[in-house]
């Protein structure tokens, strides 16, 4: 088994009455891209905060690079490049100042690479960060996360609110990081086409629980949208084992089916139905199906 960069076991977290995370177990293997999907308020940022040591584990355990991020901030955070959702670099600093500032914390900082990125992103070193546009601030944050060539890149909603040009920069950075041996990326996003393109593995968080945790390939291969044509007409969708969602009317009913192909054929035969159409599902639809039940 490849070693796990992040190993979370049975993590639970409450904020007063609200259960932000419930018995979450997750393993992020080294050298891949791990996508974290969830609706707003599902607990993605809370989970990421646990990984960075900003929250201690109320129950369960969190281990990053084999260390507890709360107890060993330097050992853990020194190997992580982090881009927060708020992108809250101090507004009064200038671009050059924040680069020099951040450099002091990371022994592995590559100044040449940082300058390269700064030129690539077209950032004026003398500008104050509060005078930058949202997209430029995001670029600054990305620069700060990448310049020390971290082993683990953690991006919390990196594309939110950004135009396609900057999103491209961010996604390219993810690709480049992954292509380098042994480096891992963890990012959370709403934009499922990004997840589909980039992630090796995906975990869906819903209301604080992990609903799905598989490789993207497996997910896409195991979900189908099938249309069955029945001999009789039904007012309500006949029960198909393994189906998660159904719609249609009369003789034809469409199901979102997850599981074994042969089982589907068997089940449909038992129901005296013919498979008339079949299509793969996009990650968007799979996500909605998994999340809509509750």
């Amino acid at each position: 088994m490849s070693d796990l960069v992040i190993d979370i076991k049975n993590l639970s977290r409450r904020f007063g009455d609200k259960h932000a995370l419930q018995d979450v177990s997750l393993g992020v293997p080294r050298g891949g891209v791990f996508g974290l999907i969830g609706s707003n308020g599902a607990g993605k940022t809370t989970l990421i905060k646990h990984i960075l040591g900003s929250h201690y584990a109320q129950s369960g355990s969190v281990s990053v690079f084999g260390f507890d991020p709360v107890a060993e901030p330097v050992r853990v955070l020194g190997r992580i490049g982090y881009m927060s959702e708020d992108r809250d670099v101090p507004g009064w600093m200038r671009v050059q100042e924040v680069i020099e500032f951040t450099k002091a914390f990371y022994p592995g900082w590559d100044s040449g690479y940082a300058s390269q990125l700064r030129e690539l992103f077209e950032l004026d070193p003398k500008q104050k960060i509060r005078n930058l546009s949202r997209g430029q601030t995001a670029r600054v944050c990305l620069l700060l996360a990448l310049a020390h060539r971290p082993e683990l890149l953690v991006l919390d909603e990196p594309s939110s609110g950004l135009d396609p040009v900057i999103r491209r920069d961010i996604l390219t950075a993810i690709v480049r990081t992954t292509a380098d041996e042994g480096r891992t990326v963890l990012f959370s996003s709403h934009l499922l086409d990004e997840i589909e393109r980039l992630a090796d593995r995906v975990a869906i968080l819903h209301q604080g629980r992990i609903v799905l945790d598989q490789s993207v390939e497996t997910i896409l291969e195991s979900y189908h949208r099938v249309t069955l044509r029945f001999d009789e007409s039904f007012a309500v969708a006949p029960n198909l084992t393994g189906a998660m969602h159904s719609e249609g009317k009369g003789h034809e009913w469409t199901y979102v089916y997850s599981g074994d192909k042969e089982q589907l054929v068997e089940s449909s035969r038992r129901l005296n139905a013919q498979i008339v159409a079949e299509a793969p599902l996009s990650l968007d639809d799979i996500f909605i199906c998994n999340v809509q039940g509750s």
Partner: protein
Amino acid sequence: MQSIISALSWEYYARNRWMLLYLPLIANIPVICVLVPLKSISPDAAFMTSPLLIGIQMILILCMVLLACFGVLTTQGGLKRLYRLPLSTVQIASYYFCSGALLVGAQVALMLWLWKVLLPIDLPIAGPVLFSVVCWCALQPVVRGQSQSLWWIVLAVLIVIALFFWLLRNHGIPLQPGGMQTQQVHYWTVISRADWLITTVSLSLAYWLTTLRVTYDRSGRRKTSLFEKIDLAWERVQSRWNSGSRNFNSAIQAFSWCHFRSGPIAIPMLAIGSVILTWMIAGLVSIIQQDSSTLLRFAIGGTYLSTMLQVYMAFLFGILGLFGSSLARFEAPEQEPKASNSQILEVSPFMDGLPINSIDKSFAVLRSSGRATVLSSVAVILSYLLITIISFLLGNPLQSGEGIEIKSFKYLGFLTTSAMLLTYVFNNLKFSIAPSLMRIDHWIWPIIVIAVLLAFRMPLGLCLSAGLCVFALVALVYSTIQSLIDKDLSVRTASLIWLVGIAIAVGLLAVLRNEFGPVGMLLAASLVGLVMLPFFSTAAGLRQARTT
């Protein structure tokens, strides 16, 4: 119009009504704590109207008024959220202007009435209520804009100081050091014509300025305010200075720089600024009046003021740091406080994501607050030095007394030292001292000591200062033990700090034993204790802040 008022009023009420309730109640607690014991000690009515007591009550009134203004302001929230509604600017500005004034006046009246009921004082209500309304209105033009410049806070402070002088005059307190002891100090019982004039003028001016300001903000074509122009000019100067790249040798240095620049730097800036201003004004006035002693008198007064400002600014920052999240809510109470809004180093995902441990962070924070303290104190000390030199050169023109003991270096030394120590304490309020305040086990011993001393019928001042001293000691001992357990400090460093602290305390007390009574000695000892505290408790405080 009717429905608009009722809609806005409902929003007001629904938004944050607890703040409106709680804050005035909380404001009464220190008052009651201070004045009720006094009632038990000396039921003599004359005592309560003695100059000292009136002075205390006046300061309490000022604090209460400021708290009421702050509370109402916070519940109202920023006006920005209303700009997109179909309301005229005048409606928006007037509604909040007038309703705020009414609420502040009502709160102050209510609180003062409570005091009259609970305490044997015959405090006139009308004067302070008028003062509170004027205070509220005067602050409106300053707080209703959206300018990001910190200079607005400075302006607000200056306005409050000016109004405070008005309050002083109305209590018969002349504007001199030692003025509070004179016998003509009295309650503000008479609202003179001058008062009404001041009120009317300032209210109208404030209303006009507020409406102007809100109009400018809403139209979006606001010109860069004067303060922003100053900021921009300063930025241009800075960027020419800082053309070279900044090089940090270590993470601690970098973090210290960042912490310093994001808050504490204002303290030395203010101190240095006011010292320079003092000398400029002093020089100008003395040239006009052709009198060298005026130069010195103004210089002394100005330097005094700078010292007070230094401490006050540190206090403000300390308090702001504690309540920073509620300030961030001021602009958008409906949202979660966004970390990026606060100017002060608070819960910040970016900062928390940096690989630095809490011990190093604490060194950085202590360094930065030390820097702020030292820089501002040096400015003040140099000013005093200059005064001494000039006075020496001019052959001591101020020897005739007038209550200004320029020759008393002891007094000056004490003043600057205590200002420096206080500044340092307030700078470190958030991470080092406030956590101790929150712990109940730190309060048990002080309360026991106060109770015992009160039972022995000791004077209240003695009891309270003894309590404070015990609190500082208890907090210090706890933090020392905790920091040794956490291995934040080595035993050697901890003992060194204790030795130095005790030496300073003993030194202070020895030097000032003639001037200070027991109360003074206890206060001085507590101050030294509170200065030592951050060295032990900051790391733990930062650790607590980083991980929730």
